[in-house]
């Protein structure tokens, strides 16, 4: 699929997420916008090796997992009107995805655990691919590095780790909090096959999700991508736009 079409899909996904998040103001919109292009590349670009019917996506950073809901609805995992019932009584979609939601496979919400769980899935069925989407601020959890050592030792190459490297924690930049850089070098010392790419560039995404297929992809992204006043602003981690003007502007930019 050409990049223009992928970008168009990504925009509609972001708009959908923006709509259901701002409807009731229920959190982590900011974190849900950064990994959208990664997901669109996996799910819609035929040149990637990802197969949503066979492969499993695990969200380590489950607070960003609502980004997958419009995609799963589009692929008929559940009715589209579920998006309108997001976080409402009677709806099936929650702030953190969990295994009760069709197309989701893990109880989300506690950082640092998705990687170990995904490791178990990958080891149980080595012929299946597991795609793990982690947050960069999730890397501060020690359990992540326990699992990385294990993944390397057991050569679990069917587990593909994507770090949504948006550079922000809850209340500021990761490099001001505790330096993660040089992140690629740190990851390489655990699992050798690590690449850094622009997580919003479809050529780059296609490259790593098709022929290169490295174990770890550090996808440099922008938190709040697509909404100019939110992009890269850490305070939006916990704030969902609520004023009519902000919502109108956001929707305009995503339309």
């Amino acid at each position: 699929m050409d990049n223009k079409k992928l970008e168009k899909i990504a925009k509609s996904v972001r708009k959908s997420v923006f709509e259901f998040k701002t409807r009731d103001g229920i959190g982590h919109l900011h974190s849900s916008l950064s990994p959208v292009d990664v997901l669109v590349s996996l799910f819609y670009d035929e040149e990637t090796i990802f197969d949503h019917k066979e492969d499993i996506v695990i969200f380590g950073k489950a607070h960003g997992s609502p980004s997958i809901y419009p995609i799963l609805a589009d692929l008929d995992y559940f009715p589209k009107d579920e998006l309108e019932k997001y976080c409402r009584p009677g709806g099936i979609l929650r702030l953190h995805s969990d295994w009760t939601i069709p197309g989701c496979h893990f109880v989300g919400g506690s950082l640092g655990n998705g990687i170990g769980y995904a490791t178990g899935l990958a080891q149980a069925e080595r012929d299946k691919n597991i795609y793990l989407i982690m947050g960069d601020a999730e890397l501060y959890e020690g359990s992540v590095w326990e699992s990385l050592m294990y993944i390397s030792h057991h050569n679990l190459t069917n587990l593909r780790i994507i770090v949504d490297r948006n550079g922000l924690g809850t209340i500021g930049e990761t490099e001001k909090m505790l330096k993660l850089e040089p992140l690629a070098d740190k990851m390489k010392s655990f699992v050798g096959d690590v690449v850094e790419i622009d997580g919003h560039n479809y050529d780059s995404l296609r490259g790593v999700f098709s022929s290169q297929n490295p174990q770890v992809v550090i996808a440099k992204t922008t938190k709040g991508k697509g909404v100019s006043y939110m992009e890269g602003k850490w305070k939006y981690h916990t704030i969902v736009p609520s004023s009519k003007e902000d919502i109108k502007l956001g929707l305009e930019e995503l339309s």
Partner: protein
Amino acid sequence: MTQRDTFIDELFKIAKEDKDVILISVDMGASALDQWRDELPEQFIWTGISEQHSINLAAGLSAKGKKVYVYMMAAWSARCFEQIRYSCSMPGNPVTILSNGVALGYAPAGPAHETNEDIAYMRSLLNVEIHCPRNIPKTKELVRLSYEEPKLRYIRLERKYDVRFNDEDNGSLIGGIEMVKPGLFNNPARTGEPKVAIVSYGYMLGRCDDVWKKMMENNIEGCLFDMYQLKPNPITESMFDSFTHIISVEEQTLSGGFGSIILEGLSDVGVKKDVLRIGLPERYIFENGDRDYHLDSNGLSVDSIYDKVVEFING
């Protein structure tokens, strides 16, 4: 043989026939592990000291249909409590946790290695079964149960502990609690006398047996119960009909522990009885000594328990 080696040994026999049985050792040793390493290397996973990862890994394997056992130190169950809750309990992944060195079992190593609260915090988890086998037959039966009916289980294993109360102690797990020492005299002339039920589990049963003997010597009516299943709560409405006093004895601090299970069980079935909880004091033990020394010096000697019983029934 220890309960631990018995469990690992019995499980090995099953694992040889079923490749989906996986044993994870969080760098914990046991002589029974050697055969796993030699003969079933694909089914033995040595994760290293990484409790959080090990539980998440086990949960993931379990989600794909593997029958997973995690062998770890009891004290570190607190360290991966979150992962047990999050990756096993919430999604219903039936991992079996083999908890070794329970309560003061590692006493010479100091309070960091002791688990005087694990019953309290583990039983707060949803969808978990907790077992404390008193002997080898019960340990073997738990191997069968965990394999045939997978569930999230926390099995507290003793080291060299194998208490048999009679020749027919065959390991049945039916009921979760059983009277192991009868001691009601059924004498109509003693209708108004106290009738004591001592309820305990695991390592404390040996001491409670001595307390019971002392009660018999001193003409105090009472029976000893082993409650080897702590969750689900096995107490029934009629279980203590014949008793006037119920006394729980545990190798734990009292906050939310074994005695609390008794109280909750009685309350849930609408039984009102006088209950005394006996356990470890609310403190960490920073003194040298082995398990029995610490029990003796922290209110859980046979004489101390007996004195508390007498004071309670005379109170």
